[in-house]
C-alpha cells in the first residue's frame, strides 16, 4: 500500500482504535450504560432509531445552514467595511471584539423572550457564533495589502473602490474561504446549544431529552450525528477553498529562486 493511501486511511484507523479501546474499557471495567455506553450499543441505537434521529438531524442542518448563510452575508459586509476604512476599523473593531466575548449561551434566553421557543433563536445563535471569524478574516485580508502595491495603484489615480475591487477582495478570498471552515463548525455549536435550551425539535432537543431519560446510547448517537455533519460540512468547504484559491496555497514558495 502506498504512503498516500495510508495517509488517507489514518483518520479511520485512529477512530477504529479509539472505539475499540472504549469498547474494551467499558467491558473490562463494567461501566454502567447510563454512565458511558459502549460504542457498539451506540451504533445499534443509531441504526435502530434512524428515523427520529434523521428527522431531528435534518432540522439541525437546515437551522445551522440558515444561521451560517446570514453569518456569511453579514460577516463579508462588516469585514469589507472594517478592512477597507481606517475610521470604520477604529469605530467598529472594539465593539466586535466585545460582542464576540459575550457567551452566546447567555443570549439564548433573551432571544426566546423576543422570538419564542423554536427555530428562530437557534438560527440566530448559529449566526452570532459564526459571523465573527468571517468578518475578522475578510477584514484582515483587505487590511494586509502590500503598501507598495497600494502606492502603485494610488499613483495611477486608483480610487479606494478600485483598490478594494481589483486587489483587496481577490486578496481576501483565501482568508474568506479559510474562515468558512471555522464558521460552519461554530454554526453547528450555536444551533445545537440553542436547541438544547429552547426548542422542540433538532439534535440538541433530542440529546437533551434522551439524557433526561438516561438513554445514554441515544445521547451519544445524537452527538455522533452532529460530529458527522460537522465533518461533512468542513470537508465541503475545504474542497471549495482548494478549488477557488489554489493560487494562495501554492504561493508559499513565492519569490524564491533566481
Amino acid at each position, binding site marked *: 500500500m502506498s504512503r498516500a493511501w495510508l495517509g488517507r486511511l489514518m483518520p479511520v484507523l485512529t477512530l477504529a482504535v479509539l472505539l475499540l479501546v472504549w469498547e474494551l474499557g467499558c467491558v473490562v471495567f463494567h461501566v454502567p450504560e447510563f454512565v458511558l455506553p459502549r460504542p457498539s450499543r451506540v451504533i445499534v441505537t443509531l441504526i435502530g432509531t434512524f428515523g427520529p434521529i434523521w428527522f431531528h438531524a435534518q432540522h439541525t442542518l437546515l437551522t445551522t445552514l440558515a444561521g451560517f448563510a446570514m453569518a456569511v452575508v453579514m460577516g463579508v459586509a462588516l469585514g469589507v467595511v472594517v478592512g477597507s476604512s481606517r475610521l470604520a476599523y477604529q469605530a467598529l473593531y472594539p465593539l466586535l471584539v466585545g460582542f464576540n466575548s459575550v457567551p452566546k449561551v447567555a443570549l439564548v434566553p433573551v432571544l426566546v423572550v423576543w422570538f419564542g421557543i423554536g427555530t428562530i433563536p437557534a438560527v440566530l445563535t448559529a449566526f452570532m457564533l459564526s459571523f465573527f471569524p468571517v468578518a475578522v478574516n475578510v477584514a484582515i485580508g483587505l487590511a494586509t495589502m*502590500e503598501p*507598495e502595491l497600494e*502606492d*502603485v*495603484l494610488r*499613483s*495611477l489615480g486608483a480610487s479606494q473602490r478600485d483598490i478594494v475591487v*481589483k486587489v483587496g477582495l481577490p486578496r481576501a478570498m483565501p482568508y474568506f474561504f479559510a474562515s468558512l471552515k471555522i464558521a460552519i463548525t461554530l454554526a453547528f455549536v450555536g444551533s445545537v446549544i440553542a436547541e438544547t435550551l429552547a426548542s422542540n425539535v433538532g439534535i440538541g432537543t433530542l440529546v437533551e431529552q434522551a439524557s433526561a431519560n438516561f438513554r445514554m446510547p441515544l445521547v451519544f448517537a445524537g452527538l455522533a450525528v452532529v460530529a458527522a455533519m460537522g465533518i461533512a460540512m468542513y470537508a465541503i468547504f475545504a474542497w471549495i477553498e482548494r478549488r477557488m*484559491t489554489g493560487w*494562495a496555497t501554492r504561493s508559499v514558495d513565492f519569490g524564491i529562486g533566481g
Partner: protein
Amino acid sequence: MSGTQTPLVDIADVRLSYGGAGGTLAVDQLTLRVPAGRLVAVVGPSGCGKSSLMKLVTGLLRPSAGRVSVAGQAVRGPVKIVGMAFQNASLLPWRTTLDNLMLPLEIVEPYRSRIRRERAGFEADARRLLAAVGLAGFEDRFPWQLSGGMQQRASLCRALIHRPALLMLDEPFAALDAFTREELWDVLQGIWMERGFTTILVTHDLREAVYLADTVHVMSARPGRIVATYEVELPRPRTLDVSFLPAFSHLVQTLRAHIRTERGAGDAAAVA
C-alpha cells in the same frame, strides 16, 4: 547637457516632515532636477529619505515646504505619467503574468475607458513588452511559477505598460542574487534605450548606480538632501566589461567614500 531644456522632474528646496510640527524631518532643502529622457540614480545611506523622494515625485505625499513639479506641472495629486517598481515585485498571485500587466490599464485613463473595446490591442502591447524583457512564452504563467528575476522583469513591465514618461524605481533589484541582478541591469538599460522614458533609480548598490545612470546624485543622511552629483561619462550600451574599467571603479570608490562620510554624519547627529 542638462542645461537649458526644462527638466521633466523639478524638485526645488523641498522639505518633508512626518507627524506634524516637531515630527521627523525626512528631507530638507532637497533640490533635484532630472532632464527628460535621462536615467538618474539616487544613492545614499539607509534612512536618507529615498522613499520620501519616490512619494513626493509620484504625488503620494505633499511637501511640507518647497515645490515639486513633473512635466512642468506642480504636483498636487497622483501623477499618472509615472510608473513605479519596487524591491518586492508584488504581482497579484491570482492573475497570470499577462493579466498582471493589464492591471494599470484597468485603472489609469485613457486606457481605462477603452480597455473593454480594445483589450486585444492592449494585450498585444503587453506581449511585446514581455518579449522585450525576455519573458516571451511566460504570459500565461502565474507569478508563483516564475523565478524571482522573472517576477521582477514582469514588475518592470507592469510599471511601463501605460507608457509613462517617468519611471520610478525603488531598489528594484535588491532582493535578487548577483548574477540575476546584473542580467536585469541590461534588461533595464535595453528597454530604456529603446523607449527613452526618464528614469529615477533609487538604490543602495553603487555599482548598479554607476552601471545604469547618466547622473548619480548622493543624498545625505536624514534629513535628506543632495550633497554631490556625478556625471557618468561611460559609453552606451554599457556591458559588464565597462564595470571593470578603471574609470568605473574610481567612480564607485568616490561614491563609497561619500556615503561613508554621510553615514558618519548621520550617526553623529543621532548621538548628539
